[in-house]
């Protein structure tokens, strides 16, 4: 079938987006198209059921005509299941693909009950209606956000947090999330949401605040620095007492002129009264020098404030 005969604008059975064609093109150029894509006939057109990557890669290198399999199944759900099971057998699905699959199953008339009991386990998702709801909400995400989730391999927990923001909030968050790794993304989302809920200020309003906007508009800062600065601002709002205690601890170290070569740490979150110091040395002279410095520090009046 000539590629022109496949009406690619109809994506009703498509579940995969945001993939790279590079390797597929290499494969096509090396050994040709081995597995024919699956098409069906709808609304006077042949449309693609399964094999989007293959067909798009063929189009990219103008490989046409190509062999195809034509499904004569007329039922939408049964046709979609052909695509689903073919993919299920051969690869893992990402978070957004899982969301699209579940959304399509529902769209094509599968009952929620059957989706929860039969399809969620097949997708490695806990078999609960809550999980179905959450994944269905992912399918409604904006395309740019879906792309970010796929490209950054965002974990379920962070995507779930995103689903709790309104579309406008998600749009504002996108540039902040882009430069960050998974852990920092989650931290930022959590802090923003929790500050918002605690203070009854919508997240969109918090993101539009002057200090956050100043950081975003700064020409001196790189995208990563902007995100980090905003993360820091949110952290201070979320944990004011802890931040203030950390500030006091740091400023005390400065005041008593704590030497940089000796590291000093409070217990995590100041939960214990313990303070630990560590330093490295190569010989007795260096060791003695560090000890003298520590003794000098300990004799300072303000030193005991470290333990308050």
């Amino acid at each position, binding site marked *: 079938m000539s590629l022109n005969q496949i009406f690619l604008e109809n994506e009703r059975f498509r579940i995969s987006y945001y993939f790279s064609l590079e390797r597929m093109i290499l494969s096509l150029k090396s050994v040709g198209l081995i597995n024919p894509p699956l098409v069906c006939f709808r609304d006077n057109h042949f449309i693609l059921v399964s094999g989007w990557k293959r067909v798009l890669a063929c189009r990219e290198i103008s490989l046409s005509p190509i062999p195809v399999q034509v499904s004569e199944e007329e039922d939408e759900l049964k046709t979609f299941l052909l695509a689903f099971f073919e993919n299920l057998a051969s690869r893992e699905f990402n978070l957004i693909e899982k969301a699209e699959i579940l959304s399509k199953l529902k769209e094509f008339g599968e009952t929620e009950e059957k989706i929860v009991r039969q399809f969620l386990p097949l997708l490695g998702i806990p078999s609960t209606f809550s999980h179905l709801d959450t994944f269905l909400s992912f399918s409604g995400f904006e395309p740019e956000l879906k792309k970010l989730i796929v490209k950054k391999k965002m974990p379920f927990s962070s995507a779930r947090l995103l689903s709790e923001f309104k579309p406008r909030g998600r749009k504002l968050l996108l540039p902040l999330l882009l430069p960050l790794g998974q852990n920092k993304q989650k931290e930022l989302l959590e802090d923003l949401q929790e500050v918002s809920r*605690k203070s009854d200020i919508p997240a969109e309003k918090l993101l539009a605040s002057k200090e956050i906007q100043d950081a975003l508009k700064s020409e001196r800062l790189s995208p990563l620095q902007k995100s980090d600065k905003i993360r820091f601002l949110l952290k201070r709002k979320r944990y004011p007492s802890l931040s203030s205690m950390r500030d006091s601890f740091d400023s005390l170290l400065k005041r008593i002129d704590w030497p940089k070569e000796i590291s000093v740490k409070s217990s995590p979150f100041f*939960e214990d009264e313990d303070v630990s110091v560590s330093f490295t040395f190569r010989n007795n002279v260096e060791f003695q020098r560090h000890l003298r410095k520590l003794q000098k520090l300990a004799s300072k009046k303000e030193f005991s404030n470290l333990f308050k």
Partner: protein
Amino acid sequence: MIRSRYLPQKVFVEAGSRDFPFTRRILKNLPKVPIEIISRPQELIENIKTMRDAIEEGKKYLLLTRQKGDFIKPCPCTPHYIGCNYYIINLDLNCPLDCSYCILQSYLSSPLITIHVNIEDLWKQLDIFLHKKRHSALRIGTGELGDSLALDHITESSKDLVSYFRRKRNACFELKTKTTNIENILKTDPAENVVISWSLNSYRIAQEEEKGAPPVDERIDAAKRVSDKGFRLGFHFDPIIRYSGWKEGYREVIEKLLKTVDPSRIAWISLGSLRFPPPLKPVIKKRFPRTKIIYDEFIQGKDGKIRYFKPLRLELYNKIVSFIREAGGKEVPIYLCMESGEIWEKALGWKPKGKEEVECSLSFPLDLP
């Protein structure tokens, strides 16, 4: 749950559990409730766990089954903080009340309200356990994985438990509740080694976060009636929760409590600030979207649980201890639940060396053979 007594929509009886006398008693007390005998409770549990709110769904049903393991376990308390040497009896699992902060929401693997009906095994296990511990005083109770009295109109187990422990002088037995389900207690002779306890909170927290539980004043009135009957009382301010106006909120309820009940009849008051394992947070967020209690300034403690930043906890304890002392509870034993030695020292003026010392400070002088 509404404030009236809990009635399940249906009782599921595991096939092997239907002939126990305790099962017959429970079913007799639920004459109009449909019953279904099931052979595989796990299938029912898994089915309910798929529901959008499995926890709420599970509260609609009662499962009668057997305790296949030990009824008695040491209270797990929490690592790295001071425990209280308490033992728990797992007769019931889960609770018809629906408190937003309840740890059972993420702690138990089954959402069903479950009663273990092989109570004869409990007595045997208790006999052996208490014999082994006969040279030490111990505290033991049923209110850890469920409310001790919320199902008592169905099970009447309080009568059996009080009667059993009355004869066990090295044990101090506690029933812990938020309910006013005290009819059976009032029909039972008191025993000095039995303590009936109430979990209390500020009026606002009780109203906003303790869905289905009676108002605080009704709990205090129930405590007064039980005290008048001759039982000793315990109170648990746990979890203590910060909010705008918390000081006034807790002072108010403490004053009311100590005006209503005789402080000399209070065996102990425990204090514990809000803390929870990390997996509970998304559950609370989803099930109680309006609550703000999880958005305060928490840190991850040494035990991995989420708890208030230390200075905030200390402020809570200091204030509440002073409210108790000022309101007439000068001599009432107070202990902290799952707290560090430093907090004990700063809030209560002494630091137990371990859970045995906490135990010693609380155990009523019992007759040890």
